[in-house]
């Protein structure tokens, strides 16, 4: 009996469409969020993350609509966020059908937001998203879609966030994101050893071997990727087969399990 390592496709959403960003710049249309969600639900994804990258006031109601459309397709957990600034905005995301809300920039500016969300909805519903760049032997969190340095230290920031009630850390390496050079296992292992909550590794997934490494060397509890799944160059069932053969505990959908009724 083991806690399975999770595979999490990520939908970056702008104006109701899934888009692909490269190094936080430049967008390409990758399809309809509900259609992709239905596919991942079928293929055995363990969870879905949906990020609003439009971050405009007008975009917010479209995003809530998209959450509703995506949630209808899922019998899996859904995490959603992007530009969440207040508890009420968090509530709207959860009401729309997400199980967890992710916060990033607003939590850096006002860490109490994490405490408020955790008190209201429970730690299991609060995911702290941290985008970091390597700086010598440590990592620095960046905000506003990875554009603005904070001068903080990633390990110190996640420690505070967990004390305030964050139930999971979604950790993105800006250096690796979109460059397809593999997860930053050193970063993931460092943060996983720092906090007592699950760590979701993100940024740089390019092939099956990257996932195996982030679950072993990187000590990640979950791994997130976008384009390699959207492109269908890498299927989730094949990835899980590869991980299982490498000794990583993964969940298989019921139909492929032994002793099906």
């Amino acid at each position, binding site marked *: 009996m083991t806690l399975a390592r999770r595979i999490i496709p990520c939908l970056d959403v702008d104006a109701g469409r899934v888009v692909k960003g490269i190094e936080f710049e430049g967008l390409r249309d990758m399809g309809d969020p509900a259609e992709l969600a239905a596919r991942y*639900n079928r293929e055995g994804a363990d969870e879905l993350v949906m990020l609003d990258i439009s971050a405009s006031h007008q975009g917010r109601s479209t995003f809530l609509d998209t959450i509703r459309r995506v949630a209808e397709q899922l019998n899996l957990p859904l995490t959603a966020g992007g530009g969440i600034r207040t508890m009420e905005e968090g509530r709207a995301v959860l009401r729309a059908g997400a199980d967890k809300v992710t916060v990033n920039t607003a939590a850096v500016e006002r860490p109490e937001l994490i405490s408020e969300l955790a008190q209201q909805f429970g730690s299991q519903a609060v995911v702290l998203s941290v985008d970091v760049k390597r700086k010598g032997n440590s990592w620095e969190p960046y905000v506003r879609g990875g554009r603005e340095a904070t001068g903080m230290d990633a390990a110190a920031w996640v420690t505070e966030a967990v004390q305030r009630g964050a139930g999971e850390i979604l950790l993105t390496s800006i250096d690796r994101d979109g460059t397809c050079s593999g997860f930053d296992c050193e970063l993931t292992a460092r943060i996983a050893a720092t906090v007592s909550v699950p760590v979701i590794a993100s940024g740089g997934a390019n092939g099956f071997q990257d996932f195996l490494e982030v679950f072993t060397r990187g000590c990640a509890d979950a791994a997130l990727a976008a384009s390699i799944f959207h492109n269908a160059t890498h299927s989730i069932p094949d990835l899980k087969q590869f991980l299982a053969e490498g000794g990583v505990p993964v969940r298989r959908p019921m139909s492929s399990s032994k002793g099906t009724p």
Partner: protein
Amino acid sequence: MDAARVIVLPGVGHFSAFVAGLRERKLTGALRDASRAGVPILGICLGLQVMFSRSEEAPGETGMGFFTEEVRALPTNVKSPHIGWNQVRRTRESRLLRGVPEDAYFYFAHSFAAPAETQATVAACDHGLAFAAVIEAGNLRAVQFHPEKSGDVGALVLRNFLNSVEFPGLPQ
């Protein structure tokens, strides 16, 4: 509540917010009456925990008390919250898990748990300690995981719950 043929106690959040919410809506007594009258009740996650008499999450609060044990925090030597997909170990024949493969995974998201030694436990899970994952006793059923988030096996658990209760008006 009087007309309810079946009751589902879902729940995420805080133990005290849940029981206070029941109290404010004057549902605590109605829920007790319904349980006494044999109405099938399914507790999910926090809904399982409030079936117990008390929780370490809210020391001053009183739960429904259907079970006398205390809900405890998960130990500090493991990652908490226990978030993700885990398997369960069956300790007795289970109606909710009928047809569910032994090695099936369920989605958990919680920091507190009821002791596995609870008499009504039919399946346990391990995360730092053994805790009750599935409870069945008379008309009471409860799961610590989220069947509604557990893919096809979760849907089967919910189907089993509906199939295991007999009441008029259930669409087949």
